[in-house]
């Protein structure tokens, strides 16, 4: 038992361990250089972004103060002592939350429909020619790179205040984000059904309807739901620029220091987002298992 492990001769061990040490030193050197570059970038970024540790430390108590303060009513009592007073605007806020959800829903739906019709043009395997694919891709990229709030700002000027510019802004951003994901799904399909459909005389859209859609639909729906979840969050701040939803009241409460209102609205938003998260996750889970059961 004692000699179960055979020991190599010293000379061999020496050369092997020297090799090991050299390898490790090289690895360590790369790590150190990487860390040095990171540190330099950090210092530079800190300088550009006017990071002021002293100001931060001197004022950080205000953050916790603020978080604590939003849980006190105007009369100085804790919010939990008077829930009715805390949620005095519940009816109004619920209506605005409903608006927010509808903005997200409509934006996601319209964006997803548009993405559905564009994604085939942007995918490698189904685009009719490279030029078309190039332009479809660049267009989708543009839609998703420009933040939705920027679109909302521009649309508010064009369409007037209210939820309409919010819906359109979310729609365009969703088109860009989903179009890319949908195109990736389409690129991963099995092409044999498509070939079969075309061989038996199907037109392009017939082939898509009967050979592509059945393969991708559950994935599309899953991505669409995920996007809806993200868009609910996005719609909650559309009101900041006057594009409808609960954001309008929230920014007013923060700017005018209506402390208890801030916490009430934030809690409502967080609760809504969490419920939507749970519901969509459940549906997506069912979609995926349904898909697996079929194949």
């Amino acid at each position, binding site marked *: 038992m004692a000699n179960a492990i055979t020991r190599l001769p010293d000379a061999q061990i020496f050369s092997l361990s020297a090799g090991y040490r050299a390898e490790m030193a090289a690895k360590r050197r790369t790590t150190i250089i990487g860390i040095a570059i990171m540190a330099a970038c950090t210092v530079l970024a800190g300088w550009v972004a006017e990071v002021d540790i002293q100001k931060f430390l001197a004022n950080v108590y205000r953050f916790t103060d603020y978080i604590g303060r939003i849980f006190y009513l105007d009369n100085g009592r804790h919010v939990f002592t008077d829930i009715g007073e805390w949620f005095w605007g519940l009816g109004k806020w619920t209506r605005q939350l409903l608006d927010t959800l509808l903005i997200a829903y409509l934006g996601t739906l319209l964006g997803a429909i548009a993405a559905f019709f564009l994604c085939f043009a942007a995918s490698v395997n189904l685009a009719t020619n490279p030029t078309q694919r190039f332009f479809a891709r660049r267009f989708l990229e543009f839609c998703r790179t*420009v933040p939705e709030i920027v679109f909302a700002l*521009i649309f508010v*000027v064009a369409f007037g205040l209210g939820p309409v510019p919010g819906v359109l802004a979310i729609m365009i951003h969703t088109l860009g984000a989903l179009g890319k994901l949908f195109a990736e799904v389409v690129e991963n399909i099995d092409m044999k059904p498509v070939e079969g459909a075309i061989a038996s005389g199907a037109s392009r859209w017939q082939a898509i309807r009967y050979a592509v859609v059945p393969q991708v639909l559950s994935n599309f729906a899953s991505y669409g739901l995920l996007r809806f979840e993200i868009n609910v969050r996005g719609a909650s*701040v559309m009101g900041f620029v006057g594009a409808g939803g609960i954001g309008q009241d929230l920014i007013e409460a923060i700017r005018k220091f209506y402390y208890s209102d801030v916490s009430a609205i934030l809690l409502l*938003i*967080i609760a809504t987002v969490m419920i939507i998260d749970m519901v969509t996750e459940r549906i997506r889970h069912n979609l995926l298992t349904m898909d697996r059961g079929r194949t």
Partner: protein
Amino acid sequence: MTTQASKRTLFPDQTDVKQRHAALITGSPQTKILTISVIALMAAVALFALFRLEFSLARLGSGIVQLGTFLSLMVPPTPGTQLIGLLKALAETVAIAFLGTLLAAFLSIPLGFLAARNVMANRIVQFFARRFSDSIRGVDTLIWALIWINVVGLGPFAGVLAIMTSDIGSFSKLYSEAIEAVDGKPSEGVTSTGGSKLHAIRFGLVPQVMPVLLSQILYYFESNTRSATIIGIVGAGGIGLYLAEMIRTFEWDQVAFIILMILVTVAAIDFVSSRLRLAIVGERTGRL
């Protein structure tokens, strides 16, 4: 004539085939009803939304005409007289995204471990760590920016803190999921050869999750660059301040220039970070 003939030879007993596979061709009534009701429900909600959110053709039409005017005013894009200021703001934007992501990446490590089911034995702690990160994620970056402005004043530092805060929520979720997905055997091996719990984490767990996490962090850096372009709208530094101002004062040619600057910057960062991701992770990319 010829197509008719060929059809007949290809499918000599078409009606017969149709009859025999009627169920396959028409589909089961159950799925049909389900499909129709899902579509009807979605359409009904959409109609309700259109009605409630006061959509009207007249409004859409006049808006699109307005947009057309804006677009025509956007060419040619010009920086106006403030090119230096714009470049500085752009650098600020990138710095905000970089620092915010970096700080969040470090600060979420403990929270990620607390929220991971296979590391945190205490269910209650794990549950609250999860809910805590969920709540942080439920609040948009812009809202965090507004709150941080109250603390450190207007300027890019508030933006850094805002990006950091909202990313802590996302990162701790990502971390805990990555940690839960690891293979437990290397950690077991380390423990069995006499390693402490910390050793098991360092040599059994970290090497497994590191590549995935680094690629995720890079991905977030890209998306944070996008977020950092807009937090200026509420006064938290970066190019968003200029952008909002130019839109409000109808300087459309400058708006177009700023948007182009943003597009170029985001594309450049995408390029750099995808190269970095390849270098760090090798071929094992893939977002969770």
